[in-house]
C-alpha cells in the first residue's frame, strides 16, 4: 500500500532497472572478469564455480529449513518468534547429547561409528524437544496477546535471553559438533574438485522438508485451515473451525523445523553459544528478502542469501574478501528498494 502512495510506477521501474543492471554486472564479473579473486573467472575455472554454486545451494537448503519454520509461524499468527534461534541451539545441543549416548562416547566420535540411525534419531529427538518447548512457550506466553506483535517480539526476546543463558549453564561454552553418519561421509569428484556428499545430503533433507510442507499446506485439511487463516482469520473462526488448534499445531511445526535446522546446523557447522543469534539473523535475512509469511519467499530468500554468502567471499578481489558482509547488506537494500515487504510478501495489514 505504502509504496503505491509514496513511490509510484516510474520510481519502481527505475529501481528495478538499477537492480537488473547490478545483476548483469555481477554475472559478467563472475563469468569473465574475476581474475584477481580466490575462485577465478568462471569461464577459466569452471570447477571452482560449480563448487561455489553447490556451496550456495546446499547452504540455501539449511537456510530454508530454519526460515520456513519462522515464516510459517508468522504467516498465520503474525508472531515474530525471536526465540527461533534459541530453539535451533537447544535442539542442536540435545541432538549432540543424544548422539553421544547412542554411540556411547562423549568425544572423538568418528563418522564410521555413526550409523544413519544414530544421526536421524538424535535429529528427531532434538527437533521434538524444540517443538515441545515451542508449544509450551506459545501456550504460556503468546496465546493471549495475539495481534500485539511488538509485545510478542519482546516476550520472545526475553525468553531467548533466558534460554541462551540456561544453555550456557548446562552445555558449557565450548563449541560442539554432531557427527554426520559414516555411510554418507564421502567425497566425490566434480570437474577436478572434491566435494562432500554430506552437503548434498543436507540439500536433500531440505528438499524433503520443502515437499512435505508443500503437501501439508496444499493438500491436507489442516493446511487448508492454515492457508485460510492466513487470509482471513475472523471468517475461518466464524465458520466454526477451531483456529486455536491450528495455531498450536503451526507453532509446534515451526519450532520443529527450527530444531531440525539446529541438528543439521550442528552437523554442518557445530553449535556454540552465539550460534542461536547468528541463525536467528540468518532466518531474519531470508524472510525479509523473501517476504514474511510466504513459503515461496522463504525458498527464494534462502537461495539468494545462500548464493550471496557463497559467492561473495569467493569472487571478491582477494584483498577485499572481508567486505563480503557488505554484499548481504547490498542484497537486502536492493530487494527492499524494489519491494519493501520482500519478494513475495504482502504489504502489512
Amino acid at each position, binding site marked *: 500500500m505504502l509504496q503505491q502512495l509514496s513511490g509510484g510506477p516510474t520510481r519502481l521501474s527505475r529501481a528495478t532497472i538499477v537492480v537488473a543492471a547490478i545483476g548483469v554486472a555481477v554475472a559478467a564479473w563472475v563469468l569473465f572478469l574475476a581474475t584477481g579473486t580466490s575462485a577465478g573467472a568462471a569461464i577459466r575455472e569452471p570447477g571452482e564455480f560449480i563448487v561455489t554454486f553447490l556451496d550456495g545451494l546446499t547452504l540455501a537448503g539449511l537456510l530454508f529449513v530454519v526460515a520456513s519454520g519462522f515464516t510459517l509461524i508468522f504467516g498465520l499468527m503474525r508472531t515474530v518468534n525471536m526465540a527461533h534461534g534459541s530453539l535451533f541451539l537447544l535442539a542442536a545441543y540435545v541432538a549432540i547429547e543424544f548422539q553421544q549416548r547412542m554411540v556411547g562416547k562423549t568425544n572423538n566420535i568418528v563418522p564410521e561409528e555413526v550409523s544413519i540411525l544414530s544421526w536421524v534419531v538424535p535429529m528427531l529427538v532434538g527437533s521434538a524437544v524444540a517443538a515441545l518447548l515451542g508449544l509450551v512457550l506459545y501456550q504460556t506466553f503468546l496465546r493471549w496477546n495475539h495481534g500485539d506483535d511488538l509485545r510478542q517480539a519482546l516476550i520472545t526476546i*526475553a525468553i531467548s535471553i533466558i534460554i541462551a543463558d540456561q544453555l550456557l549453564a548446562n552445555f558449557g561454552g565450548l563449541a560442539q559438533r554432531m557427527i554426520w553418519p559414516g555411510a554418507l561421509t564421502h567425497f566425490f569428484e566434480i570437474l577436478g574438485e572434491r566435494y562432500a556428499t554430506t552437503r548434498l545430503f543436507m540439500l536433500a533433507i531440505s528438499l524433503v522438508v520443502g515437499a512435505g510442507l508443500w503437501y501439508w499446506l496444499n493438500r491436507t485439511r489442516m493446511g487448508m485451515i492454515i492457508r485460510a487463516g492466513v487470509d482471513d482469520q475472523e471468517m475461518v473462526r466464524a465458520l466454526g473451525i477451531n483456529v486455536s488448534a491450528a495455531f498450536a499445531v503451526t507453532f509446534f511445526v515451526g519450532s520443529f523445523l527450527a530444531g531440525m535446522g539446529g541438528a543439521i546446523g550442528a552437523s554442518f557447522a557445530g553449535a556454540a553459544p552465539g550460534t542461536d543469534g547468528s541463525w536467528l539473523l540468518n532466518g531474519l535475512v531470508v524472510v525479509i528478502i523473501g517476504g514474511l509469511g510466504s513459503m515461496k519467499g522463504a525458498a527464494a530468500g534462502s537461495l539468494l542469501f545462500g548464493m550471496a554468502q557463497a559467492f561473495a567471499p569467493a569472487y571478491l578481489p582477494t584483498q577485499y574478501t572481508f567486505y563480503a558482509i557488505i554484499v548481504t547488506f547490498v542484497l537486502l537494500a536492493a530487494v527492499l528498494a524494489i519491494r519493501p515487504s520482500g519478494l513475495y510478501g504482502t504489504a502489512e495489514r
Partner: protein
Amino acid sequence: MTIDRSRWLPPLVVLVVLAALPLFGSEFFVTFVMTRTFMLGMAAATIVFLSGFGGMTSMAQFLMFGIAGFMIGNLSVSEAGSKGLKLGLDPWLSVVLALVITTVVALILGAVASRTTGIYYLMLTFIFAVIGFFFFGQVTTFSGFGGITGIDPPPVLLDHPIRLYFVALALSFATYFTLRAVIRTPFGLALQGIRDEPVRMAALGWNVPLHRTLAFAMAGFLAGVAGVLNVWWNGQIDPRSISIGPTIDLLIIAVIGGMARLEGAWIGAFVFVAANNYLRSIPLVDRIGITEARFNTVIGALVLLIVIASPDGITGLYDRLRRAWRPIGVDQAANQLALEGNDPSISNDRGEIR
C-alpha cells in the same frame, strides 16, 4: 504560554540532586554506575524516541553508538601498536568527524529501512546491527575483532572521571530536553501522525519515508554522542561490545524503563547497570541459585515479567499507580491539562487515553 511548573520542576530537582551527587556518592557509584547509566540512557532514549513517537522500534541504535566510538578510535589514536587507521587527529576534530560519519551512516540505513514499520523495522534494524558487528570484526582496516585500544579523551577530561560524569550528566539532560522539544515541533507531530496512521499521513501529502529517515538520522546522531562518551570512558572499543548481546541489552533498557516516556530510558539504564553491579551483593541471592554468572537469566526474567505485567515498563507502572491513587476529579483535570499541553504520552497506538 505560561511556564508550567509541574512540567519543569521535577527534571530540575533531579538535575540539582545529580549535580551534587559527587559530593556524597562513592566514587565507584558516581563513575561506574551513574556515568554508565547516563551513556546507556542517552542511547536508549533514542530507541524510546523512535519507537514511542515514530513507530520505529530500532535495534540499530547501539550500532550508531558503536560506529561513533570506532570512528573516534580510528581518527584520534596515533600509537604505533594500535589497530585501525591511526590518523592521530585532534580529539575535538575527531568528535566532529565521527559524529558526521555516524549521522551519514544513519541517513543511509534510515533510508533503506524507511518504507518498513513496526515489527519489520525491528527485524531489519536488528540485521543492520549484526552486519555492523561483522563489518567491524572482519574489516581490519577499521578495527578487526581485537578492537582499538588506547583511546584517550581530550586532555581536559583525561584522568578526571568526575568531569566525565558531569559531561555525561549535561549531555543526558540536553538529549532529554532536545527530544522533548523535537516531539512538539511540527516535525515531531508529523512523526507521531506517521506512527499512528502512515497511510493517511501519506494521503495528506506528508513524505512518510523522509520523515522516518530524518528521525532515524537524528536518533543516530544522539546515540553517536553517547557512543563518543562511552569510548572516552572505556578507553577502548571492540566489535564484541556492539554484538547481538549488547544490542539486545539496549532494547531491554528501553523496555524496562518504558517506551512511552523518554525519562524511562535513564530509569531503565539505571536498573540495568545497578543490577549488573550489585546483584551479587543482595544477601542470600546465591542461595536460590542466582549467581553473577546467571545475570542474563535474571535480567531475562525481569524483562519477561515487565513485558507481561506492564508493557510500558517502570514509567508505565508509575503512571498507572498514580492514576489509581488519585481521586477521579483530579485525574480528569490532569488528563485535560495533558491534552492541552499536547502530551504525546497520553495516547498510545491503541488510541487509549491514559
